[in-house]
């Protein structure tokens, strides 16, 4: 090192690597600073599985066309209109090309396997998962001559009048603690692993959140940029949160702690009360709402309760369900009041009307005269052993970010574009995702804006 790089990329995930490769292919010299040690490189990208891209026809890996318009409508629906239409449409258009571009960078897609998830039309799955995908990107980047440093946490940025000058490292790399570069690509993720910061918006409740991904996304780069005059975008309380097993590790439990058994039972809080219609929506929307719902409950804990007739109806789970031969026994094991839980279940059972169960559609199994209702998939819980999963909010990633334009160039608070700073991935996801989420968009945002950011950063550096 020692020399000044054309492009400095901060981060080590999908967005960072796409940016680094694209900048290098654009002729720039590139350094990637990854704050994590080598094994943990690639932050949340390590945990991903698929990516959502528009395409006009079925392919080997996708079962049917998914047009730009349909993608846009899906995005509009999940965000309730809270999205930057120009940027979002631009991203969707670019996503078509990403399907092939990413393969050119060595990433392989999995042929559709009939699989577990009903996303074979809209989403492409990485062969071997996100870490396999990352490994391929790293191999390509290194082959092209991108320099990569691990354990390279950036603790300060030197920025003057919207112009990036240098980044300061926590510990020296090849004797240097300050790295200068002509352009910057910030791709250092959100702030979901920073509980203190989350507490500013969520209060003490945030102590009970589990962070599904990397402990290294503490939002430090985001904070520095916002403090140094980059315009902020997005609502800080908005994030992607799902209900995950309460027994999961505090950080980095990844995909395997998820639950989607809600439709097969009921969900109660620590007072043994139901609090939301478990039959409201179809996967994956259903999947994405329960994190917030549980976050709003006392002590941020809830219990999915079902009976033995349905155990094999959903994906096998990492943690086994907690079981009891009677409701009272189960309540005891969960630390709930047995009498109240018995009453809740009895009332629920009494409200169930006969219907034909089908969890793949909004079926006609409903409850009557009960609040909250269960509007689909309602069936009595009556066959012991009774089973439960304790769940807590599992935060996937946050949406507060830096405002960018179509060139992935950061916008300053005064409305002017930055001279040489670009952003990609989670750190600017809020431009597109005001709220809500559609599976696979995290990677789309990272790849599309990463590729653009790298290209533009290289162009700026070589001018």
């Amino acid at each position, binding site marked *: 090192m020692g020399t000044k790089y054309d492009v400095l990329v901060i981060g080590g995930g999908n967005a960072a690597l796409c940016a680094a490769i694209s900048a290098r292919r654009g002729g720039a010299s590139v350094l990637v600073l990854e704050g994590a040690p080598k*094994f943990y490189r690639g932050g949340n990208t*390590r*945990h991903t*599985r698929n990516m959502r891209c528009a395409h006009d026809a079925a392919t080997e890996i996708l079962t049917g066309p998914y047009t730009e318009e349909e993608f846009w409508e899906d995005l509009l629906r999940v965000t309730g209109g809270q999205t930057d239409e120009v940027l979002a449409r631009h991203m969707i258009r670019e996503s078509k090309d990403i399907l092939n571009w990413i393969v050119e960078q060595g990433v*392989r897609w*999995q*042929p559709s*396997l009939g*699989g*577990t998830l009903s996303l074979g039309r809209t989403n492409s*799955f*990485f*062969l*071997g*998962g*996100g*870490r*396999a995908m990352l*490994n391929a990107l790293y*191999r390509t980047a290194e082959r092209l001559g991108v320099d990569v440093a691990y354990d390279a946490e950036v603790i300060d940025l030197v920025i003057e009048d919207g112009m990036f000058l240098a980044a300061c490292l926590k510990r020296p790399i090849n004797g240097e603690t300050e790295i200068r570069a002509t352009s910057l690509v910030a791709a250092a993720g959100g702030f979901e692993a920073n509980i203190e910061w989350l507490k500013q918006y969520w209060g003490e409740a945030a102590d009970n959140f589990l962070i599904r991904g990397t402990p290294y996304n503490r939002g430090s780069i985001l904070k520095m940029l916002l403090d140094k005059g980059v315009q902020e975008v997005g609502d800080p309380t908005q994030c992607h949160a799902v209900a995950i097993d309460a027994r999961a*590790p505090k950080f*980095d439990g*990844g*995909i*395997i702690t998820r639950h989607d058994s809600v439709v097969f039972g009921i969900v109660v809080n620590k007072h043994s009360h139901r609090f939301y219609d478990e039959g409201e929506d179809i996967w994956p929307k259903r999947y994405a709402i329960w994190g917030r719902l549980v976050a709003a409950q006392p002590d941020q804990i809830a219990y999915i309760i079902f009976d033995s007739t349905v155990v*094999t109806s959903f*994906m*096998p*789970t*990492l943690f086994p369900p907690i079981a009891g031969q009677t409701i009272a026994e189960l309540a005891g094991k969960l630390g709930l009041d047995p009498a109240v839980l018995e009453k809740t279940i009895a009332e629920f059972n009494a409200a169930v009307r006969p219907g034909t169960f089908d969890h793949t559609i909004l079926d006609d199994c409903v409850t009557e005269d009960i609040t909250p209702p269960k509007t689909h998939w309602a069936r009595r819980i009556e066959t012991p052993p009774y089973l439960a999963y304790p769940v807590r909010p599992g935060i996937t990633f946050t949406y507060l970010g830096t405002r960018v334009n179509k060139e992935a160039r950061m916008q300053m608070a005064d409305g002017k574009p930055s001279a040489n700073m670009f952003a990609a991935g989670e750190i600017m996801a809020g431009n597109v995702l005001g709220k809500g989420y559609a599976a696979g968009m995290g990677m789309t945002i990272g790849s599309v804006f990463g590729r653009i950011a790298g290209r533009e950063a290289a162009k700026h550096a070589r001018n």
Partner: protein
Amino acid sequence: MHGTKILDEADRLMTVCNSCRYCEGLCAVFPAMEMRRAFSDGDLNYLANLCHSCGACYVDCQFSPPHEFNVNVPQTLAVARAESYAAYAWPQALSGAFTRNGLVISVTAALSMAAFIFGFAALNDRSVLFGVHTGPGAFYKLMPHNAMAALFSAAFLYAILALVMSVRAFWRDIGAPIGGRADGGSIFQAIRDAGELRYLHGGGVGCYNEDDKPTDRRKLFHHLTFYGFLLCFAATSVATLYHYLLGREAPYPWWDLPVVLGTLGGFGLIVGPIGLLVAKSRRAPELLDENRYGMDVGFIAMLFLTGFTGMLLLLLRETAGMGPLLALHLGAVFALFITMPYGKFVHGIYRFAALVRYAQERRSEAGS
């Protein structure tokens, strides 16, 4: 919970993987796992023997160590696989041979070779062992053909019997219907999968060795070894037919079929095992079953020795070296035969059976 500690660990991992499934496109192990929710000992032994140890699911796993979930599928399945060989060995009394395999193989090999040299010398006088013999029947000046055939048939038949009994136990345990037969289609599918080492490809990029850069090196050397072995086997079979059907006695001229097959095979059995040994010594230790290192090395060394002595014999058969070399070669082959059911050789047989089972499962799934 299970019979052994390693099966407990394999069960834990399969539970993790079954709730993850990111690796389902990499090989047969994961789709086979997905067909089950709970795992018996037999299921785990089946999955362990389906694994080709390509390493991809280790390099691709977000939960491999140092992550606290500590997921290391290739190593766990490698240990479980090795233990399964002993568990199904016939007769059971000899199952211990697997653990001391390196020693067993070297002692057996040394004894067999010594026995042949000694036997030659004792049967004839020393001048025969060190004399120059040429022309048809030259080999049998050292040991009469019938004696040779009887000795090797006995060793071979014993090996076959022991292998059949072991695989039968395995086949029963892996959930194949009791007494159930494999159908032709599944067997054909398994022959293709085994023949091309379909699952030693890390999902298409090759195998992982010393780092996270995949190569096809292990597959290439395995092919050389395996097909080298088959060619040598074919050479011996053709020679046997020549002898009994055509009355033509070995040694044959270099252009004749048994020699051509044997030469090609011998080449494979020299280059292949050396390549495999080098690959093994360079492989990341976290992918290997270190305790069984000796068993793998012992078997590879035996194959090499067979090929190497065979080739030397071909080159020097018209010199005084023929006698000792023939003795060494026959000793190596003999030792290879009798240790077959108790060493790494069985991996091919169990893997093949597992592939047949997998093909069956796929077919019945597609059919249902």
